[in-house]
């Protein structure tokens, strides 16, 4: 499931494709920590949802999700985001939330996007 999860992550946050091994380790540590306190049913649900994404990719494009090009991956996830079934929309929302948490939860990402909040406030900005 790691392969499809990383493919989802790089579709949600294209910059994640630049991660080296240490980058993925940082990312996955954040995600694992967030999931550790969640019910086992939620973790099972996410794994099932990753399988569903792979199945849809095979059904639609005869290829695993991780083997699709970026445009097809985006189209597939976008269609799930607008799916008539709430369960599907909710599953995608959960995955994208994890992707954003793992990516933007890293101090390096905050610096990259120019986020500079500091407990010292105005004292360091004037």
């Amino acid at each position, binding site marked *: 499931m790691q392969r499809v999860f990383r493919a989802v992550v790089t*579709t*949600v*946050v*294209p*910059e994640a494709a630049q991660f080296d091994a240490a980058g993925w380790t940082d990312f996955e540590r*954040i995600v694992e*920590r*967030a999931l550790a*306190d*969640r019910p086992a049913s939620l973790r099972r649900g996410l794994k099932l949802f990753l399988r569903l994404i792979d199945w849809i990719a095979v059904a639609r494009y005869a290829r695993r999700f991780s083997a699709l090009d970026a445009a097809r991956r*985006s189209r597939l*996830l*976008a269609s799930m*985001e*607008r799916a008539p079934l*709430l369960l599907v*929309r*909710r599953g995608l*929302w*959960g995955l*994208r*939330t994890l*992707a*954003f*948490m793992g*990516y*933007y*939860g890293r*101090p390096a*990402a*905050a610096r*990259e*996007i*120019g*986020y*500079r*909040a*500091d*407990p*010292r*406030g*105005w*004292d360091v*900005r004037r």
Partner: protein
Amino acid sequence: MSETAERRYDVVIIGSGAGGGTVAQELAPLVRDGRRVVVLEKGPRLGDLEFTGEELEMAAALYADAGGFLTADGTMTLAFASAYGGSTVVYTGTSLTAPERVIRRWSVPGLDHADIVTRSEKFAAQNGVHLLEDSLINDNNRLFVEGGRKAGFRVEQFPVNVRGCRGSSLCNLGCPNQAKQGTNRVQLPRAEREGVEVVTRADVVRIGADGSLLVRVAARPPGAKGGPAEWPPGEYRVRARIVVCAAGAIGTPALLLRSALPAHLPRLGQAFTCHPALILVGEHPRDITNDVGHPKSYFVDRAAEDGFVLETCMYFPFVTAKSLTGFGASHSATMRAFPRLQMILLLACDRAVPGNRVAVDRAGRPVVHYRFTPETLEALARGTRAAARICFAAGARRVHVPADPPLIEAAEADRLDARVAARHFLPGRVSISAAHLMGGCGMGRSAADSVTDVWGRVHGLPWLRVADASLFPDSLEINPYLTIMALADRVAEGIRAEVREPVNA
């Protein structure tokens, strides 16, 4: 500790936020007269230096489920804190008094708007509520004022309860400079100085039919923020003459629902409202000060006319990313424009409707059932269009909103009605969150229409009180904390009149 220890008090207060902290302070004079009062707080007591402003770290330390508590169908995130001071640790300190029309609409016999105003003024003075001086206002707020006025809205300044604000912009992660005057800074320390006990990491499992509380005090997890519990970890049976539930609009109804209460309370858990909220951003052509300065200094109140309120805001990278609709390159481009982002929080003034309620699962954990009504979705669409107009009037070159596609360029500003409609607010697609959690133990006449009377007394159980936002019979339509304090003040007044004789320790 293997056996259940017994403790006896005159008054037990469950929760230490705006409600519990207020009741603790207002009952402190009883301690001088020999009564025993204790506050049981589920969360930890953090030291001043533990407020680092780091997003994920502070969210995990202060919020229930690290800020990711979801409604039963997974379509909305509910944010509430679990800490010494409750959610007053993580709000922005905005201090508004309940509108008269709302109190009138609530129709609670004996609840007078003038009384709410008087009590709100008392706590506003106590908490140093004032308008921030102009030199502390950042560009994000100035653009809201400028754009709001140009777009034809009445823009008002928030009175806030800060003392010595340095403008960290980190209010929602707990002020790292102790400037915000939540109950953790004002009411609880005052109560403790007068002899009220506060026990943190103390989870009230249930209330027995005899009024006794089963309490589990947790050990401090290794590496966790906050001090150790004031009582040794273990299980306690706490007995009191009066039990005050102030665990919030989710915690209080859930506690009462899982308790064996000898009363028929068909309205318990019902009428939950929460001001469902969206974060909307506008991208300006130049960098602005947004992640420095008090984040929430101005608002536009369209509750009465259009069912929404717009407030300035500034969130952190993960919350911002999660809140923006969509994903991929355009989402990333918006995130990378962070120093140029104007940010607005849109709150829909939802109404209490059948089905939106707090329940508990088989393990007694809270479950919040919430469906967005068509009226709420329409209010979100109207509010989104208004926020976009404000951003464009302030000079934004594009906005990112729950449209399809989410980016709307300034050239399309005159097509907002077509570009943003209620159909775009598809639950489960759009990131909706809420932090103004209300209802579940509404005040009213009898058990047929409510859970408590106007003094927070649970119908049929005069020893059991409620003193938090769960008392609201419907949405307040403004930031609720001063009103919670005002109602908790009434509850405390009722208790003071009743508690006369001390019990043996």
